[in-house]
């Protein structure tokens, strides 16, 4: 039975619950928008990295470099899309 619950996965799960708890602090405590967003950005990206590396085994095969390139490319384009849209539509710099 024990071999079905590897310590690495259990630790990863506990860590993801802790990250969710930390993210929840922005709801329960009064803080500035900047502080809240910083906490959310850190916990969300940490959570995503945890899933990608630990649970999705992104680095285990010989196609590791291609896999990471594809994922980073997706993330970079997504971030540029979001920030570029904010720049033009919300922050009003364009």
């Amino acid at each position, binding site marked *: 039975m024990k071999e079905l619950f590897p310590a690495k996965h259990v630790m990863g*799960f506990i860590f993801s619950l802790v990250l969710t708890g930390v*993210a929840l602090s922005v709801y329960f405590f009064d803080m500035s928008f900047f502080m809240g967003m910083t906490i*959310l950005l850190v916990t*969300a990206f940490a*959570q995503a990295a945890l899933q990608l590396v630990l649970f999705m085994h992104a680095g285990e095969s010989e196609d590791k470099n291609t896999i990471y390139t594809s*994922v980073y490319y997706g993330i970079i384009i*997504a*971030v540029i*899309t979001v920030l570029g*849209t904010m720049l033009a539509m919300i922050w009003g710099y364009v």
Partner: protein
Amino acid sequence: MLKMNNNNTQPLEYSTEQGRMNILGFWIFIGAEIMLFGTLFASYFTLETRTGSGPAGAEIFELPPVLAETLLLLTSSFIIGLGIHAMRLGRKKAMMTFFIITLILGAAFLGFEIYEFIHYVHEGASLQTSAFTSILLTTLGTHGLHVTFGLAWGIVILIQVIKRGLTPQTANKSFIFSLYWHFLDVVWIFIFSFIYLKGMM
């Protein structure tokens, strides 16, 4: 054509050239999905304040169901990880049990999401109410649709594993399904953080 590379140190799902390529191809698809959700988030942040005569996020979001959805999806993602681990140990029964639990948690997640949508419509926040409610329901709905599709996909894969056992092909499909499921959890974390928590902050 299947080309075996007879590499016994690799897990079953990587044991054929075709299987390895399927996994790589799925990762490229995930890259495209990241960009898809990126565009939805970009639209959401743009339209978030355009509530017209409808409600704002803080007025309709409820923490308990959202928290339940988050915990259900986080747990299901962990459980399917255990399922793949069991598959690599060759423990077919344990793997299937973990997969079934994953799907049940996924169905429970959908149940909460459907409750949430009904609640929004009762509060007067439907797809047509305002720019905000339409992008909100589109973003949540796109994720929900992915989960719904995942449930059907997972059931079909389970049936194949029951019928054919753990072969390089069924192991490969199960592994790819687990990638999809983990990815849905990642997307939900961003929805939870930047739509709900940010909206209720």
